[in-house]
Structures are given as structure tokens and as C-alpha cells.
């Protein structure tokens, strides 16, 4: 069991994450960009990206197009989840069509949340291209999903699931590796 990534170490991971997305957006500076986070945690990371990535005049590269997806209704295990399901609002108040969309999540593992998010995005409109940025890649993919930006790659590290805490939701920035593997 390695120690949690926090403080300086977290700041480095977050910086690598922001830098990676920044490079992609910079390379496509002529196009219209949006950033959409998967609830919960991904939406807070999307807000951070929108605040961090600005042009020379200080305006966000995403031009205010910051959204949040609740993918509960698109999950492939919704029937099994049953009465434990909590539906929250999807907040994407701009037209997706033709945009380059950076899809953001805290942890990428099986890829099932991302699959659900892609289906949800498609129902909102037709993006020109969807990019995937995750703070942590935990490995263990069950679907052919590939991230474009990874803050830290923990896919080769032994242990269980990764839990990400963020100041916005949890009061602290931290990446923890849980002790043992757990189903679900």
C-alpha cells in the first residue's frame, strides 16, 4: 500500500493534467472548445480546467462552455443499482454540435462511466471530436476506451480502487489507493 498522493505531489499531478489538456486545446486554438465533467468530481475538475486555461487576454479557452454530466441514467448496471440510484441534473446549457469537447473524469478504470458519458453526450448533440482527460488512470479496462490526457498513471500499481478527494467536494485534494480489490 503506497501512501496517498497529496500536497506537493497532488499539485504536480494536477499540473500535469492541466498541462496535458492545455497542449491539446492550444494545438486546436482555432476551434471552439467545451469542457464537460462527469459527476461527481469530474465536474469540479472541469471547472478547474476552465479557470486554468486562459488566452493572452485572460479569457477562458472554453468561452464559458463548462458543463457537468450525470450519467446515472446511461449506466449499463442501472437495473442492478436499482433503488440505490441517485439521479442528479445534467448541466450542459450550450449546444454541443461542432464543438471539440474535453470529457473529464477523476478516475478511469473499467471505462464504463466514460461509455455512458459518450452516449449521454451524443444525445445532447454531435460534437466535432470528444477528447478524454482523466486525473488518474487505474487500468483494468473492460471496454476499448483510451484517454488522451492522464494526470498520473497508476495502472501498474498493486492494490484496490483509487479514491480521489477534491477540495470542492471533500475539503482536501488527495488521491488514495484502497487496500484490497473490491467488486463493483
Amino acid at each position: 500500500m503506497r501512501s496517498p498522493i497529496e500536497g506537493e505531489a497532488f499539485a504536480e499531478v494536477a499540473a500535469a493534467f492541466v498541462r496535458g489538456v492545455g497542449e491539446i486545446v492550444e494545438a486546436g486554438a482555432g476551434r471552439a472548445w467545451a469542457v464537460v465533467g462527469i459527476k461527481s468530481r469530474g465536474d469540479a475538475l472541469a471547472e478547474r480546467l476552465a479557470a486554468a486555461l486562459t488566452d493572452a487576454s485572460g479569457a477562458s479557452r472554453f468561452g464559458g462552455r463548462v458543463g457537468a454530466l450525470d450519467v446515472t441514467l446511461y449506466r449499463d448496471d442501472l437495473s442492478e443499482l436499482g433503488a440505490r440510484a441517485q439521479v442528479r441534473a445534467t448541466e450542459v446549457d450550450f449546444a454541443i454540435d461542432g464543438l471539440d469537447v474535453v470529457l473529464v473524469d477523476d478516475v478511469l478504470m473499467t471505462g464504463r462511466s466514460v461509455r455512458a458519458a459518450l452516449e449521454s453526450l451524443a444525445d445532447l448533440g454531435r460534437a466535432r471530436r470528444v477528447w478524454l482527460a482523466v486525473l488518474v488512470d487505474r487500468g483494468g479496462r473492460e471496454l476499448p476506451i483510451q484517454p488522451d490526457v492522464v494526470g498520473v498513471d497508476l495502472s501498474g500499481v498493486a492494490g484496490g480502487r483509487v479514491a480521489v478527494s477534491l477540495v470542492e467536494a471533500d475539503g482536501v485534494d488527495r488521491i488514495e489507493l484502497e487496500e484490497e480489490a473490491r467488486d463493483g
Partner: protein
Amino acid sequence: MGESADGYRWGHRDLLGLAELSAEDVRHVLRTAEGFEGVSGRSVKKVPALRGRVVVNLFFEDSTRTRASFNLAASRLSADVLEMTSKGSSVSKGESLTDTARTIEAMGVDAIVCRHHLSGAAVQLAKSVGVSVINAGDGQHEHPTQGLLDAFTIATRKGRRGDYDLSGLRVGIVGDVAHSRVARSNIHALTKLGAEVVVIGPATLAPRSFESMGCAVADDFDAALPTLDVVNMLRVQHERMSGPAFPSVREYVAGFGLTEARMARAKGDVLVMHPGPLNRGVEIVSSVADGERSAILEQVGHGLSVRMAVLFLCVLSRGG
């Protein structure tokens, strides 16, 4: 993601009435409804939540609005919808409610939305089938989704979303309260969320017995109106207007119609509601129904979100 963190769990296969729900249950439906609101504004007005499920609209009583609302709600959840009416089916050939329901169940449906002219029909139905039963109005008993959507509308317009605490708000329900399932479901929902409810009408239509449901009773609309934050006008049922309990239409309008003159006595931010369809010029005049203090059309939109939430929660409660 997508799972409850606070340990709350929706535990109802059926929605038969609001009397048996806890305040937390009511809040959970309304919060879930918020999650469905955006669906109507998207390019694809559907989510795959109930894909492959079948919902039956089993209506033994005429209804256009409620039926259409449930149909659209189920469609937006990607469920298949089967429409059954009393006319032209075995429902009118003397087949019992239970037999009809069992036949439908044998077709492999997941939920039955039922409207019936007899109080208690939905409860009887739920006892005889193993699928979800949603009460869309049974006699004079309850119309739970109407109560939920009215609470949702009040919370929205009065800035009470989130915690859905309606305390400090005084809601008047005006008209033939005694025979109204809308009134009963409203009283349950609103009192659970902390609102003060006063039922208003002539003593024959708004009897003192309603005090046992935790609301106040008044027969002087003009005296009560200035104290109200919300006024919910019940529809006058034409078939009752010839009955002995009912005053003449002229008398009714004079005492309990929501007119411009009366509105002048109300609070500036009073919210006007009506479950529809409107009898313009009877319980409410057009200029008030269509005025800016009216939430009548918002109620329709909220009805859709609330019915999506109810179908979603009840059907999924059977798995997981």
C-alpha cells in the same frame, strides 16, 4: 457516482398514495425529478433508463392530460407504452379489475399506471399483481403525482428547491375539497414538507373533518386570501354542480371564484395554481389564469418530470 451516499433508499414498488410516504420519500422524488428536467430541452428528448421495459396506461375513467403526461414520461425514459381504455376493451365487458390486471401482467409488463373512478382501486390492483402500480387517480382517494407536481411547482417558484422545506408557506386549496383526490394528495405532500394548508369552500364542500388531516378549514375566501402564499384552485366538477351540496354557479363564483377583484386582496407574490382543465369564468377568470402570478402551465411541465421520476424509482426498486 450515481449512488446514494447518505444511506437513503427508495423502498416503494408502487405509488398508491402520498399518505404512506415519508417526508424524505417525497423529497427524494422531487430531487429525482430535477434530474429529469433537462431531458425535455435536449435534441434527443429521451434517456435510456427504462429501455426494454413496458408501461401500461390502464384508464377506467376519461383523462386526456394525465394519460398523455404519463405516456410522454414513459416514452422519455425509453420504455414502451401500451394504452388501454375502458371503451372497446374487456374492461367494459364486466371483467374484474383483478382479472384485467393479471392478464396485462401475463404480457410481461413492468408497470401499470391506473386511473379508476373507485377509491381504493389502485390498492386492490397492487395486491393482485407483482409489477409496479402507479395510481393516476382513484375515486376521491388520491392523485399522488398531482400532489407531487404541485409541491414541486411551489418549491420551484418559492425558491425552496434543494432541501424542499416549505415551512412558513401558507397554501390555500379552494373549492370542492370533500370530493377531491387532488386536494387529499396535496394536503399529504404539503404538510409533510412543512407547509401550512388551509382548505377553503362552503361548509358542504370543505367540511371541518379535514382538520384531522392537519389542515385548517375556512369558509370565507375573502378573509383567508390575504394570508396565503399559494392559492390552488380546484376544478369545479360539472356533474356535481346539480347536486344538493353545490350552490348555484353564480353563488359559487361570488364566494369562491378567483376574480381580478379578489386577486387585488392577495399578497403581491401569491402563486396561483390549478390542476386543469380550467373552467374559465367559474373557479378562475382567464386574466388570472393567464397572468404572471399563475404557474398553471409550469405545472404541466413539472408533471412530466415528476412522473418520469416516479416511474423510474418504482420500476427500478424491483431490481438492485
